[in-house]
């Protein structure tokens, strides 16, 4: 089954990022000779797909920011409104919105994970004392 809305938001970005990280890990494992041919093939194939997807994402980002959002020229004078500068950056690089969202969601997940781990260790520690 495939629930959810594939390709809609941060999910795709999450997997793209995962492949980039896993490619680096697999490369290091290959150097240390801890890698298997099957895993190297899998990561290489995914890396090729990811590269093509990133190129497509850059293309979409360029087209949207240049022809659709038509970002207004703005001078980066020190006295200028920071909100306008942020808006300009987001208009130039709309991909930053899902990137920031993804980092926030994953960050929150890890914080909750750590809280659970700390609570589990605390209750295990109390049980040992009792």
């Amino acid at each position, binding site marked *: 089954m495939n629930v*959810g809305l594939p390709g809609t938001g941060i999910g795709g970005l999450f997997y793209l990022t995962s492949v980039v990280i896993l490619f680096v890990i697999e490369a290091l494992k290959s150097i240390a000779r801890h890698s298997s041919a099957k895993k190297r093939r899998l990561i290489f194939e995914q890396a090729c797909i990811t590269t093509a997807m990133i190129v497509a994402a850059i293309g979409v980002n360029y087209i949207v920011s240049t022809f659709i959002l038509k970002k207004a020229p703005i001078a980066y004078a020190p006295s200028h409104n920071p909100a306008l500068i942020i808006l300009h950056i987001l208009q130039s690089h709309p991909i930053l919105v899902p990137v920031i969202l993804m980092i926030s969601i994953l960050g929150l997940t890890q914080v909750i994970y750590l809280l659970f781990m700390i609570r589990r260790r605390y209750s295990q520690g109390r049980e040992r004392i009792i």
Partner: protein
Amino acid sequence: MKKTISHDLTVIIPAYNESASIVDTINSLKQQTKPPKRIIVVDDFSSDDTGKKAKACGVEVLVPPQNTGSKAGAQNFALTHITTTLTMALDADTTLAPDAIEKLLAAFDKPNVAAACGFVIPRHVRTLWERGRYIEYLLAFTFYKPIQEYIGKPLISSGCFSMYQTAFLKEHDGWPQRTMAEDMDLTWSFHQKNFIIRFIPEAICYPIEPENYHFMQKQLKRWSHGFVQNLALHWKDVLQIQYLNSIVAVSAWDALMGALLYVFVLPLLTILFHNPLFLLGYFIDSPITFVPVFYKGLLRKEGIMVIVSFPCFLVLRIVNSFFILEAFWSELVLRKRLIAYEKGH
């Protein structure tokens, strides 16, 4: 060449009014490079001649004392009769590539491999709904699932075609019936016990997908409610499993936020600002999602089919949004659980 019988494998086929497809399913099992030792069809009180056709194919047919009410119930009824080391669940409308079982068997090379699943491709790709599902599967099984497999955390061992260690299944009292998505529930439970779940892309199955909106909406409703029910049931445990917690978090976020965006935000922005450019949001990611799908389509010599079917995926995605929102609203806000299991074809 004499085929090796897989003495250690029983296939369970739960069936309710599947007379149109049951013979094809059984034949695809018999034509496997490694046929199973036993094939058990659970005729779940069908009103057609599913049981008769299955018996005519020479397989065991079990009939429970009353309709079990769900696929999981039918599978659990058969599980009590199984003595082989491995058990496979196969939907009655699903056929297999000739080497599918052989490929899946190879996944059980370690003692704590609890389940293995394969690649799913719709058997028929003709209508808008089948085409949309075709692209959905190509995307998920080409891009998402191999990465989940690399990390060792496949999100779901697909209910239509999966193989399990019988002992682990029985320890778990079989397929759980507490949600509409028993495959997701079982997979996440196995992850909690640190069992290994494998995804084997070379093992291919071909289910019949809903061909019209009437059946598609039943399946979408069941899957959406199943997802939300599993989130509610497993969220605390899943949060404690690294990487799986991230996969589930982004999936849940995309499901809810993506649905809100499609159903409310984009139409409202278009109307409020009188600017049709907001409608670009429905397909702005198409160049990106097209890449893995087209790649797999080329490998399968189905490039043209992918190009023609891709717009149908965009339509299915929008339709899916309504069902996901309804599921979140119904299950979490109204506390109204979906409990009636309705088939998708």
